[in-house]
């Protein structure tokens, strides 16, 4: 079980900020095409980023959550 835990990615909810995703994961578009990404990414969850799906810092101006 421990080994599996190590393999699973960790998704961190950053307060009033993006999702941090680190570990073993693959980003896909809706059509299942992989999206090139680093092993650690910050995903926009405020809807305001102009670099979606990634965070560009726009949340500072946007809705809290």
């Amino acid at each position: 079980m421990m080994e599996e835990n190590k393999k699973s990615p960790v998704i961190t909810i950053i307060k009033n900020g993006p999702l941090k995703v680190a570990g073993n994961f693959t980003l896909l578009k809706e059509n299942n095409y992989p999206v090139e990404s680093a092993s650690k990414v910050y995903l926009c969850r405020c809807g305001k980023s102009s670099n979606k799906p990634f965070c560009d810092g726009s949340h500072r101006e946007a809705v809290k959550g």
Partner: protein
Amino acid sequence: MESGERKYKNKDITVYWKPISCIHASACINGLPRVFNPRKRPWVRMDGSVTEKIIEVVDKCPVDALTWKWNDEEKNKTVGREHPNHIKNRRRSLLKNDDIDTYQGATIKIMENGPFVINGGFLLERENGSRSKFSGKVSLCCCGGSKLKPFCDGSHRAIDFKS
């Protein structure tokens, strides 16, 4: 994408595992339990026996779930029908390219005008540092509109979110 194929090596050979083909005939786990133990991870342990024994058992797999090759390419040329599960006889395409898809983890699908759909096991760490384990499908809000954050509640439709 998620075939979960694996390869395992010792100094002499590479063993290929193709889970989608497995019919659970159990020739491997009965033949060489110290090498093939599905309760352990990795479930194939190449240091559990000697090369000759591993080849013998891999050759007993009735399908192409387990196949093998010599790491020395020259040696592969001399292999014939006596080894039914040599990749030459079972999975010829691996001779040219054995860059198999070894992915195992989670996928994060970015839905159009919709949420992030995570499929597979992952740990969710909350703002307060607490961690919980998830598996299967979970949708996380990406529009900022959900009342159930960090989860999606479908609000992206109500606010006409465009990704």
